[in-house]
């Protein structure tokens, strides 16, 4: 994986110094809260309901064991002994003191980490397929491009005060594990008929209050023009994106209002101009980055066959281990969704344990997924049983990946100052209702996603089952949606009908799963049955 050189390190060190100075000016009163707010947000520091929250960037969701261990230590030293992994592959600490923020940043910088641009109206941390460089179905590794984008977007002087936040995701497989088309820019690395690597560029997707699937703006872009093309995409947005209404300020609204063809025309015009300026890093820079993402030294004779006689282990392998491109290896997903737990939370001890396992068994690498789980990307199948035993002893062996218990939930009204309703207690109730592992497996792949407000941090639009918390005359109310997907078959979920109380929505979800079990055809997932039979049978069961 990518290692900082002196230049990368100097940038994060400079940021620590700058932000320490900004915090000092705030604490002395030289900066008002109004002046400080946009500055602290660019460093991922939010003032939430109870305390400051710090969001730490995990570029394209990739960590080494030293970095992960440091995240555990920070949870112990500055928070309440746990951290929360987010739908943007980052980690958040919910109980931070403003005075401690500079020290935390210095700790992060000591392992090449930071909180740069994890909030604010700027280019956010780039996300990527969490199986990048490991997946059996990968066409090309998206991480070198993600790293090039990290560098290009870091402190970009022209695009630091955009109309609204800006999120980029990149994948390199036909299977979309990053909700790529639901981002401001979604990039897919593709190979053309001539065998050349290129980038397919989607612009104008997003969730939030106006969910949209991004149209393709460029079918095939040379990777050696990526920076120039994105400069053009961003410049058109910075100049013409709406600033009169923050709810209409995302690029999806601009692309929708002027149309994809007109947006494309403007971008191409700007791109032609930008190509004359020499802004593109040379091929040698992309080669330098690519070399750092070379495969680790896989054992070519690693055995693939393993002893599955322990039934609990066998279930976990079946559910949580994915095919790896190297024979004899697997990709392990560590579920952070135990029955009744808080989705995405991990204790400091759990975090350090996973760091140890990554060091011992996964070439020192860990990934964070947008579904709020952790991944050991390169594991010998013959090590799986030992790993499973260590995880199980720490409450980390839930065999529920992509099942109804693998719930995505935003922090909701328990923490977030934007929320209208609580997400976490609802997730815990649903998880408890469907606690039986056999029942979950019988229901099959079922992605359930909960947002505590219309901003959709919990991706409810992309849920096979989505739940949106709203405030109805001062009472928390939950709307139920069906039919969303963030995969290659991206679709937006639709609201089924009137909302529910917290207990009511759990009952409604259970009735919907009953409809699926009664009506499914062979091999159909919940989503497939919904798409085939439509809303009526579900409405009848839920409201009838």
């Amino acid at each position: 994986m990518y290692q900082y050189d002196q230049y990368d390190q100097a940038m994060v060190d400079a940021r620590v110094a700058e932000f320490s100075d900004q915090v000092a000016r705030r604490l002395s009163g030289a900066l008002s809260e109004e002046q400080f707010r946009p500055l602290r947000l660019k460093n991922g520091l939010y003032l939430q309901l109870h305390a400051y929250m710090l969001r730490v960037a995990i570029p394209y969701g990739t960590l080494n064991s030293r970095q992960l261990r440091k995240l555990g230590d920070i949870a112990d030293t500055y928070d309440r002994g746990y951290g929360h992994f987010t739908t943007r592959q980052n980690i958040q600490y919910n109980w931070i003191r403003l005075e401690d923020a500079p020290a935390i940043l210095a700790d992060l910088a000591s392992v090449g980490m930071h909180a740069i641009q994890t909030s604010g109206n700027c280019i956010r941390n780039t996300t990527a397929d969490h199986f990048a460089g490991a997946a059996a179905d990968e066409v090309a590794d998206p991480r070198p491009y993600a790293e090039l984008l990290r560098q290009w977007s870091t402190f970009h002087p022209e695009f630091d005060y955009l109309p609204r936040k800006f999120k980029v995701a990149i994948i390199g497989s036909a299977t979309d594990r990053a909700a790529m088309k639901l981002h401001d820019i979604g990039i897919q690395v593709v190979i053309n008929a001539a065998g050349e690597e290129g980038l397919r560029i989607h612009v104008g997707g997003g969730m939030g209050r106006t969910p949209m699937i991004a149209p393709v703006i460029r079918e095939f872009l040379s990777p050696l023009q990526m920076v120039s093309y994105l400069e053009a995409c961003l410049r058109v947005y910075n100049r013409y994106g709406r600033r009169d209404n923050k709810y209409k300020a995302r690029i999806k609204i601009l692309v929708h209002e002027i149309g994809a063809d007109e947006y494309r025309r403007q971008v191409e015009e700007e791109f032609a101009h930008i190509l004359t300026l020499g802004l593109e890093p040379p091929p040698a820079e992309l080669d330098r980055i690519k070399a750092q993402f070379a495969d680790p030294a896989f054992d070519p004779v690693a055995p693939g066959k393993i002893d599955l006689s322990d039934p609990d282990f066998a279930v976990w392998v079946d559910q949580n281990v994915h095919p790896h491109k190297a024979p004899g290896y697997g990709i392990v997903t560590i579920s952070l969704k135990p029955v009744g737990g808080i989705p995405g939370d991990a204790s400091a001890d759990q975090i350090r344990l996973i760091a140890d396992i990554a060091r011992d068994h996964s070439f020192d690498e860990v990934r964070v997924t947008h579904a709020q789980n952790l991944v050991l990307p390169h594991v010998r199948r013959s090590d799986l049983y030992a790993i499973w035993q260590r995880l199980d002893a720490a409450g980390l062996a839930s065999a529920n990946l992509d099942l109804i218990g693998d719930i995505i939930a935003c922090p909701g009204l328990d923490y977030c100052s934007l929320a209208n309703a609580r997400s976490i207690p609802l997730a815990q109730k649903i998880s408890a209702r469907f606690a039986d592992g056999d029942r979950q497996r019988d229901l099959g792949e079922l992605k359930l996603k909960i947002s505590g407000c219309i901003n959709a941090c919990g991706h409810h639009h992309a849920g096979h089952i989505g739940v949106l918390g709203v405030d109805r005359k001062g009472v928390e109310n939950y709307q139920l949606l069906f039919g969303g997907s963030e995969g290659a078959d991206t679709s937006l979920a639709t609201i089924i009908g009137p909302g529910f109380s917290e207990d009511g929505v759990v009952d409604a979800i259970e009735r919907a799963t009953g409809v699926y079990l009664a009506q499914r055809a062979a091999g159909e997932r919940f989503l497939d049955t919904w798409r085939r039979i439509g809303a009526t049978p579900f409405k009848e069961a839920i409201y009838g």
Partner: protein
Amino acid sequence: MADTLIRLRDDAASTAPVIAFADLAGASNAVAVRLMPGDDARALLPLLGQLELVEVVFPGFTDGRGYSAARILREYGYAGELRAVGDVGIDQLSHYHRTGFDAFAPDQPIAAEAVRKALATWPQVYQRTVDGRAPIWALRHG
């Protein structure tokens, strides 16, 4: 406003009347122009040879359109003074400078020492812009 003016140029400041962008049609000999955030900087390209001052107004520092306006003017060869005017704060100075501004007229005065420190925020930079600095990728590959 003049008493808050910070210039990073050696030439004398323009004393010409500053024409609002909206009034340019009736002032084809203008040498000093003021752009508001919604004004199209590219409309000034035919006048670049005669302009000696372009003021770019930031009514609030979170409206970043002026960064693109400035950079576009420099990319097309404008060499006169480019002045950021309005809600211009210490924490934005580095970015202003990187996108081509060489003068600042902030609503609130900024001390010379604070300006020097702000412009030195980043030891190196990742992007090539119009400030002449070699980006990190160029330093890496000579």
